[in-house]
C-alpha cells in the first residue's frame, strides 16, 4: 500500500475543512472498499481523514413519519434496527443480501452509497479503464464482461454499481443529506448516482469537499408487500448478477402503487417510473402485467459479448419478484430457494 498521512475529523465542519485543504485526501469510515482499493493501488490518497468517530450513528424518526439514518450507522445495525425491520423490511433484506456479517459490521451507510464498481478492469491497474484513468479506454467492452451493465451504458464505461442497499433505497425514494463548504443540501436518490456518459470517473453527484451525513427515508415503507430478490453465482457473499427490489401497495387485489428497481445491471440502481405506472390499477396476480412491466423496464437493455443472458434473467426476476411481493412472501436471505 502507498504511504499516506492520517488525521481525525473533530466534527462535520472540521471534516469539510480538512478535505477542502487537500484535494488528494479521502474520508475513511468503515474502509471496507477504500482500504481494499488502496491495497490494489487503485485509490492513492495523500491523506485519510478519519470520520468514523463523528456523531452520525443514530437512526431517528422524522416529523413526517420517516426515518433519518446517520451516515455512520453500520450496515448490520441498519439491517437489524427494529424500526427498519417494521417499516422498511425491504431495506433490511437488501442490506442482509450484501457482503458478509464482518463487512456489514464495518461498512457505514454513507460508505455503502459511495462504494465503487467491482468491474474486473477497474481493479486491474495493468489494463485501461476510463473510470480509474479517464481517457485510457474501456477494457470491459470487448473484454470479459459477464458481470457488466446492460442498461444506461456508454462507449466509455459499462460498469455496474455493486450495492444492494442502494437498490432498495432507490425503490423507497430515499434522500441523501450532504454537507459542504456552503452548507447542507438534500439530493433525491435518483439524482445521487450518475450514469457513466463520458465521465465514468464520477460515480455520484456529490461535489468535491462534500460529505454524506444522513440518508432519509420517506414515511411510505411498503412493509406488507415487498421483496428483495438477488440472483448471483454463489448462494451467499457474492455480488448480484441481477437483483430486484419490488414493493407494492395493494387495495384489495388491485395494485395501488408499485416500486421497482434493478441492481447489477447499470451504473446506478435502475428505476423507471413508466414501468411502475403501468402496474397501477392492475390485478395483483396478473402475471402478464408483470411481464409487461419487466419489458418496459428493460426496453433499452443491450447485451455485450458475455452478459446478454442478464436481459432475460432480469425479465424473469422482475416477474418473480412482483409475484413474491404481491403474495406477501418476500425472498428469504437465509433459505435461498426462490419460490
Amino acid at each position: 500500500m502507498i504511504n499516506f498521512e492520517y488525521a481525525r475529523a473533530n466534527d462535520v465542519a472540521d471534516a469539510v475543512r480538512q478535505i477542502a485543504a487537500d484535494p488528494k485526501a479521502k474520508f475513511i469510515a468503515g474502509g471496507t472498499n477504500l482500504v481494499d482499493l488502496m491495497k490494489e493501488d487503485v485509490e492513492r490518497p495523500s491523506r485519510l481523514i478519519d470520520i468514523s468517530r463523528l456523531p452520525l450513528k443514530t437512526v431517528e424518526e422524522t416529523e413526517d413519519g420517516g426515518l433519518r439514518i446517520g451516515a455512520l450507522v453500520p450496515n448490520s445495525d441498519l439491517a437489524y434496527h427494529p424500526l427498519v425491520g417494521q417499516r422498511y423490511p425491504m431495506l433490511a433484506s437488501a442490506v442482509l443480501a450484501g457482503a458478509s456479517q464482518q463487512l456489514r459490521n464495518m461498512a457505514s451507510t454513507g460508505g455503502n452509497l459511495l462504494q465503487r464498481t467491482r468491474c474486473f478492469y477497474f481493479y486491474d491497474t495493468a489494463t485501461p479503464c476510463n473510470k480509474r484513468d479517464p481517457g485510457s479506454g474501456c477494457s470491459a467492452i470487448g473484454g470479459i464482461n459477464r458481470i457488466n451493465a446492460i442498461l444506461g451504458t456508454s462507449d466509455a464505461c459499462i460498469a455496474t454499481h455493486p450495492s444492494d442497499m442502494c437498490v432498495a433505497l432507490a425503490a423507497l425514494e430515499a434522500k441523501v443529506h450532504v454537507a459542504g463548504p456552503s452548507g447542507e443540501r438534500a439530493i433525491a436518490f435518483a439524482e445521487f448516482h450518475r450514469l457513466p456518459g463520458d465521465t465514468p470517473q464520477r460515480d455520484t453527484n456529490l461535489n468535491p469537499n462534500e460529505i454524506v451525513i444522513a440518508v432519509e427515508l420517506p414515511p411510505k415503507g411498503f412493509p406488507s408487500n415487498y421483496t428483495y430478490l438477488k440472483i448471483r453465482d454463489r448462494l451467499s457473499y457474492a455480488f448480484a448478477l441481477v437483483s430486484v427490489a419490488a414493493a407494492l401497495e395493494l387495495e384489495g387485489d388491485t395494485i395501488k402503487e408499485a416500486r421497482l428497481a434493478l441492481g447489477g445491471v447499470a451504473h446506478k440502481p435502475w428505476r423507471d417510473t413508466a414501468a411502475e405506472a403501468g402496474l397501477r390499477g392492475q390485478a395483483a396476480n396478473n402475471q402478464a402485467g408483470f411481464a409487461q412491466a419487466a419489458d418496459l423496464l428493460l426496453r433499452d437493455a443491450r447485451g455485450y459479448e458475455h452478459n446478454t443472458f442478464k436481459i432475460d434473467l432480469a425479465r424473469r426476476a422482475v416477474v418473480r419478484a412482483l409475484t413474491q411481493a404481491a403474495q406477501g412472501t418476500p425472498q428469504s436471505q437465509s433459505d435461498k430457494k426462490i419460490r
Partner: protein
Amino acid sequence: MAPNKISIELVVNGTARQLTVAPWTSLLDALREHLDLTGTKKGCDHGQCGACTVLVDGRRVNSCLTLAVTKDGAKVTTVEGLAANGTLHPVQQAFIDHDAFQCGYCTSGQICSAVALIAEGKAKSPDEIRELMSGNICRCGAYPNILAAIQQAMGQS
C-alpha cells in the same frame, strides 16, 4: 514522504497494549507483527476469506481491512483470548469434538466469527448459520463439521 508513525492503545484480550504504527498498518499486521499474536491469520488480505476475523468492541470484523490507527482505544479479542483459565472456549472445544477443520488455516477466523454469531443471536436454523458464516471460507470444505460444531456450542450457550 514518510508520514509520522502514530501511537495508539489497544486493549487486546484484556490487556492494554501501547504500540506505534504507520497509518497504513492493518489491525491484522499490528496483531501479528507488532504484538506477536499470530493466531489471527492472513489469508486473502482483501476481506474475502475471513481468516483474519477478530472481535473489535465485541463485533466481528475483517482485521485485514481495518487500519489499526482507526481503532485507537478499542477492545480487541483474538483467538488467543477466548480460552479462560486453561479451559477452551465452548466453540473451540466444539470444533475439536466435530473435527471442524482439516488444514486449520481458516479455523481461528471461523472460531472468532462463530463466537460473535452466537452472541449476535440472529442465527437459529442451519440455513441461518450458514448464511451468517458465509464470510468465512474453508477451502478444505469442512463446512458440515463447522456447522455441527456451531450448533453444539449454541446449545451450550
